[in-house]
């Protein structure tokens, strides 16, 4: 059983756009993989002229929203970073009880990587020593910038959705047979967000401390 991996096109999003974009992408993927009886629900994005389809399951919605919240918290701690969210579908295989504990093995058969580059307005950077000049400049053309960026993002988001659909259509063979379970979601899935326990995180912290000049360090 090979695991199909799909790397979605990277999207440059601003902080306030994260939630909508993520929700759209995650729901779309799950809609295509929730092969149970589904009553599709259409949702219009507020920020963009895009309509996506949800599978209509409240539990799924809740789970996705939770994850998105967690992700946003993480992003706030790590501004201006490229991040990746992984949505994986797995099959549960009970491994034979060996002399280790009876592990339930997860066999991932599909993984989606959502690549986001969270961009923040320069003036939002309080930690950096952004002088007022920079802020003024960004303020002047931020409107135009923003609309341009917004349009680009809309186009990219649409591309990503098309990409998802294409991938879903192209590769169907690896989808395991639908288990006979009730409910919408036929396959278990999990969403992974970068955790704060990354070693990179630690490096970032150190770097930042050096830049801002921790009082204790300077003295």
């Amino acid at each position, binding site marked *: 059983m090979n695991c199909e991996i799909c790397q979605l096109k990277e999207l440059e999003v601003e902080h306030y756009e994260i939630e909508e974009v993520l929700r759209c992408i995650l729901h779309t993927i799950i809609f*295509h993989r929730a092969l149970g009886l*589904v009553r599709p629900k259409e949702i219009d994005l507020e920020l963009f002229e895009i309509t996506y389809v949800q599978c209509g399951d409240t539990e799924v919605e809740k789970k996705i929203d939770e994850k998105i919240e967690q992700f946003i918290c993480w992003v706030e701690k790590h501004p201006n970073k490229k991040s990746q969210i992984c949505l994986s579908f797995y099959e549960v295989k009970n491994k034979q009880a060996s002399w280790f504990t009876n592990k339930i093995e997860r066999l991932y058969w599909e993984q989606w990587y959502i690549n986001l580059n969270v961009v923040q307005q320069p003036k939002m950077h309080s930690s950096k020593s952004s002088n007022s000049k920079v802020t003024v400049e960004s303020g002047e053309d931020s409107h135009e910038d923003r609309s341009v960026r917004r349009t680009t993002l809309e186009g990219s988001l649409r591309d990503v959705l098309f990409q998802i659909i294409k991938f*879903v259509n192209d590769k169907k063979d690896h989808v395991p047979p639908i288990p006979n379970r009730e409910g919408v979601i036929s396959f278990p899935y999990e969403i992974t967000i970068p955790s704060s326990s990354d070693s990179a995180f630690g490096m970032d912290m150190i770097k930042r401390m050096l830049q801002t000049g921790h009082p204790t360090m300077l003295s």
Partner: protein
Amino acid sequence: MEQIVSQFLLKCLHIILNSRIPSLHPIRRSTVEPGSVSRVRKSDRWFNLLLGDRPSVLDNLNFWHRNLTDPMIVDVILVHEVSNSSSVDNLYGNSAASRGGGSVETVIERWTVHYESPQISPQANDSLSHKKAYKKLIVLLRALYSQMRLLPAYRIFRQLHSATQSYNFDIIYKVSSFSDPFTLTRVEQEMMDEYMFSTPVEVVPPGHISVSVSFRKTLSDFNLDPSTSLIPRIISDYVGSPATDPLRSFPSSDKGLQEMPFPSRGTRLPSPSPFQRPQSWTSGIHRGAAFGYGFPPTYGLPSPPDHFVHRAQSYRPSVQRTTSFDDYQLSPPFSPASSPSPPGHFLGSNPLQHGRPRPGSAPVMIPRQVATGTTRYATPSSSDSNRHSLPPPSPRSTRLDNSSQESPSGIRMYKKQEISRTGESHLGTTSPYTGHKIMRDNRDDSGRFSGLLSSSDSPRVGFSRSSSRLSFQDDFDDGDFSCPFDVDDVDASDSPASHNLEGKRASEFAPASPMGTKSRDAAVGVLVHMLRTAPPLRQDLSCYTSQSGKTEQDGGIATASGFFMPRKTTDGLEELRSYREMKDLLLSKSATRVFTTEEA
């Protein structure tokens, strides 16, 4: 296996129609709770995709689609009007476009579902392969469903489906079982972008099902703006209260009666300086108001009534179409489909105007369209068009502003003409009594009107009537005055007032009644205006105005009272009384003055 395939085809069609054809969704799909899954029809459970009610069309599909191996081709066709009626370009060779109405049908999407199964291969009754195929088809359908929403045509569908506005375009579909490649011209084919839904699904080896779509990448070539705009906003603003923005914007209407021609429209109206209203309700509304007010510039119209008649007649054949053409069909406000009198009437009253060709009234048309929008899902019938054929509410013209240019300019002009005529009639009326008379005439008017009124819901009619209480004085009631407020400035000084009045009316009218009634009220109003312009009334007016020195004011007041006419007899009577008192007062004043001078 065959059952799976046929169900798949049905499902595909269901999805496509659901997502593209607004007419099959008369009721907005009410939010169905996920919990109500248990009540789902068994037939809907196919492929684990609940779609809701199946259009009855699908039931016929099995009958029509005899051979499963024929490709099923669904064309999504956009029908829209072009302003240039000479460019009748009917791609499908049916008679729709040939009706001088200038409607063009363009294929915007072509979906092809094809099940290929070479010969009669031994259908492996392998349940496993069936299951696999079924699963794959499920995924395919999901992808199809999402795809429907990502293609550009979906936006248009949403516009049409919103049902709060009416448009002068429509989407229809056509299902065929053979590839009709030559309905698409070369150029068109180039414009279409092909998207193949991946590799064909292997259902039962060696057969496979494939779904593909050719779609037009951009739909911006078409002017697909709503023909009426901001109606919901108007309605929400107007809750029977006099003070709404549109009214307030009237005061400074003395900027000139030059109305800004429908900028977005294809009509090449000679445009005088745009009518700038200081306060605008919204871009659309203001423009619309401007239309109403603006002194209709001289449009080079080919006789609007004729045009109107022509268009009206185009209704009838369209009724038979499977999908609704109601939007733009009913738009010509005075469809004489039912009776020739409206055009005749207009024609008759034309001479009364100072020989000025009054441009057609697009504004009038718009309300009609709004009305039609709501009635869109009613069975199109000539009787419907009859009812709606009455003079469209000119106040609707406010909405016209943003309307797309597709609506025939002729009709627009015609409407304007109507509006201007009625405006003139307003100005002409000074005597409340005459207004009263008009009211009566209005009542006795052609059975059409009474029919019209009665056909509308009574509360709505009543509402519109009461709302048409326009006070010509600055205290602009936000009445939903249904009278078209064409601004005829017979009298330059009166024009601002009439502008205001008309603008107010437009605004009032717009929110006045929910969709359907507006048209009727407007029709009533227009009729009233028409009656006012009848010669006898004018005579009354002239002798009345000559009496007092405050001619204009009286005229204004009288006009105002005239405006009120259609509303209620009681209102008219009250006004009549008040005016009589005023008149008496003035006369007595002048009398006393004379007396005092004599004395002196």
